[in-house]
């Protein structure tokens, strides 16, 4: 068999139809719906947080300045987080790309994502922590009339800190065990293109 005969074999292979006709469109549509559903749930949760914050402010429920501050902060966070999620997951237009530009783009995105996950404490946990601390402290002060925290509040804060540490560890783990191998694989593909 020589190289030119490969073409005939290829044509024959490609024209051999699978006995079962897959309902491809259903698979595609179902997966597409599922992806949109997850994003919709995450965005809805943030929208709900935003509405609750506005309602709490409008009703005058929060009288303590610290609690008012935390509600404003929660509004900002509930806009910022979906913005980041939507930006990261927006539909990709694949039909204008060459494989090379796509690989370059994905490498750049992965490197950014690694930096983002590595710095999750800065962009995600810190604002949330400020919301939790000021909110709980403000609520406590409004309820008891003093800013001196009791043991219950201290335990609550300790729990929040532990949770934050866990999130940081999990993110570091994701960077090392998942993103790094993918990045390596993409760089290998780029190398194949350059060879």
């Amino acid at each position, binding site marked *: 068999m020589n190289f030119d005969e490969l073409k005939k074999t290829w044509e024959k*292979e490609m024209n051999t139809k699978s006995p079962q006709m897959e309902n491809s469109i259903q698979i595609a549509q179902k997966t597409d719906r599922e992806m949109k559903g997850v994003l919709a749930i995450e965005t809805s949760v943030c929208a709900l947080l935003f509405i609750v914050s506005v309602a709490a402010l409008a009703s005058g429920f929060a009288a303590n300045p610290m609690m008012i501050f935390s509600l404003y902060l929660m509004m900002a966070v509930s806009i910022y987080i979906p913005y980041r999620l939507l930006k990261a997951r927006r539909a990709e237009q*694949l039909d204008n790309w*060459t*494989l090379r530009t796509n690989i370059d783009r994905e490498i750049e995105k992965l490197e950014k994502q690694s930096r983002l996950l590595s710095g999750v404490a800065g962009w995600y946990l810190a604002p949330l922590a400020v919301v939790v601390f000021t909110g709980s402290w403000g609520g406590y002060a409004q309820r008891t009339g003093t800013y001196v925290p009791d043991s219950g509040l201290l335990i609550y804060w300790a729990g929040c800190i532990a949770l934050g540490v866990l999130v940081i560890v999990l993110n570091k783990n994701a960077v090392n065990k998942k993103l790094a191998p*993918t990045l390596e694989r993409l760089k290998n593909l780029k190398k194949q293109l350059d060879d």
Partner: protein
Amino acid sequence: MTSEFNHLIHNNQRRLRFVARKYGGVAHADDVYQEILVQLWRSFGQFRGDAQVSTWLYRIALNAALMWQRKEVKQPSPAGHLPEASEPPGQCQAAILQDFLDSLNEIDSVLLMMHLDDLPAADIASVLGLSVNAVHIRINRLKQKFNDRYVD
């Protein structure tokens, strides 16, 4: 549009399966295939016919396979490509074709598929992001490799 899409997939199913298997290996081929279908479905309505259908199909399939690799963060499957030193198969031409495709890296194997599908070198170059000259060089290299491996 639905029936046109089904028709398109039906006619190119094996082609897409080849790409999916190359990028996902045997273990994840179905997942990659599904990702390719989703991206084809999303892009199908916007396909204006500026390019050949096969060029458009390869472009979407390759980029979708790449997106899958990035999203799913799977370890490369050992069946993605076989070691080059493996023994050539028997005389069955389909087996030789499969063996040769398996022995190539991802880029060379899809380049070969496009070449076997009679895509012009300029189209292959535009899908992969190579120069036309580089495509010709790679095709000659593949011919040489095939001859070394299978032609006595």
